[in-house]
């Protein structure tokens, strides 16, 4: 069978799947059947090999955990849209801006509100818990949606997980037991916080609903707060500060249900407190 020479552009479009179906099957037949097209067929094979090799080499990047600085760049930019200011000079400032964004979306923050943007010290102090909630909500959104690798270390190695996270945070951590409430620990991971590492424990119920508990040990105020509630998109967050620890429980479940679970977490982690917080 004698076939016309195939224009190179068509050959590329054929290899890339960008030809109309009729033309593609015509070319496929020529390449297959006509020995004079052997060179073209060889080219197409080479190109397809290149494609497979490039995907094999670079697709793993898609599976990597997102670097927090890039997530921060998205959030900081978003908050700047709302509050035009000079470009952020450092990460701490970005987080503060991200916190402002959260504030604007939070409901039921309970009497606390942003009152003094000018005074950086007081501002930062007032913001700290909210930054925690915001970071927790982002970490929840990013990792609970990760079907392949939601956790770094699985719950089958619970003791090793807790020991590892405790060592990295420089504080003794515990993973609360939520099985009586229907949520099993599936594992955890270490994340960068504002000034040091933070831990994220992940839980899942029988239906696959995930909750995350975000634990930071970098709270400098050394004080306590009551439960606070924040909402970021579909993610509800209960958060509180207990001494140097900051906790945030995030989930895409109803506020009342999350509140029940948060109370249990609080009680388990603060055995010396006789009554739940305000």
């Amino acid at each position, binding site marked *: 069978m004698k076939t016309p020479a195939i224009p190179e552009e068509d050959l590329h479009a054929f290899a890339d799947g960008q030809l109309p179906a009729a033309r593609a099957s015509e070319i496929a037949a020529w390449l297959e059947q006509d020995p004079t097209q052997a060179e073209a067929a060889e080219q197409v094979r080479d190109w397809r090999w*290149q*494609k497979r090799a490039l995907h094999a*080499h670079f697709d793993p*990047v898609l599976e*990597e955990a997102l670097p927090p600085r*890039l997530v921060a760049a998205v959030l900081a930019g978003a908050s*700047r849209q*709302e509050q035009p200011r000079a470009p952020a000079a450092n990460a701490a400032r970005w987080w503060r801006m991200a916190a402002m964004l959260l504030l604007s979306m939070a409901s039921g923050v309970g009497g606390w509100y942003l009152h003094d943007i000018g005074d950086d010290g007081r501002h930062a102090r007032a913001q700290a818990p909210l930054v925690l909630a915001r970071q927790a909500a982002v970490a929840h959104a990013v990792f609970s949606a990760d079907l392949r690798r939601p956790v770094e270390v699985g719950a089958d190695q619970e003791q090793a997980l807790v020991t590892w996270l405790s060592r990295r945070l420089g504080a003794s951590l515990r993973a609360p037991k939520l099985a009586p409430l229907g949520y099993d620990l599936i594992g955890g991971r270490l994340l960068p916080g504002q000034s040091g590492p933070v831990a994220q424990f992940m839980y899942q119920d029988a239906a696959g609903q995930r909750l995350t508990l975000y634990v930071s040990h970098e709270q400098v105020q050394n004080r306590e707060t009551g439960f606070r509630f924040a909402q970021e998109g579909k993610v509800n967050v209960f958060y509180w500060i207990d001494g140097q620890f900051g906790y945030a429980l995030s989930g895409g479940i109803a506020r009342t249900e999350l509140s029940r679970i948060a109370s249990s977490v609080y009680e388990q982690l603060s055995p010396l407190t006789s009554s739940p917080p305000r």
Partner: protein
Amino acid sequence: MFTRQARQQRQQRERQADEQAMLACLPRLRRYARALTGAREAADDLVQDTLERAWQKLDSWQRGSPMRPWLFSIMHNLHADARRRASPATVALDEYGEIDQAQAALDPGVLLDLETALQLLPPEQREVLLLVVLEEMRYEEVAVTLGIPTGTVMSRLSRARERLRRVMQGQGESSPGSSLKVVK
């Protein structure tokens, strides 16, 4: 007052949607940047610059149109600017150390050669090849993203593929770069 509140709420919803759309593009921006620069840190720096620039010029994005080509176009411009500023591109051999061979599904030796070969392509050709092959963009989309005619896309694609093939068969013209064999 009411309308002002409604407007604020609408803007908030829009911004949240923009944020989600941008987060969704992050993995692919990172993959492309990694392949383009050949180095992990430099790639994430480029992604970060892209995100910051994107927020600065959000007005240039037509709401409702796909965000991905717009972001890639910003990344292309930033990378091209950086190339113009920098002296002829040199890639420190150390940076190849970033490549995690264990992640490779195919023969690692072959893939390292591919990585080297890719970095030996002129950046203009590498961009086109990656957008077509990795990002699987249509030729017209590549043309818009890079701001060049479709004919130029085709000629760069053709040269990139041919050059990649020759380099990998060890027939590449000798350039200073090609003597940098990666030994692992």
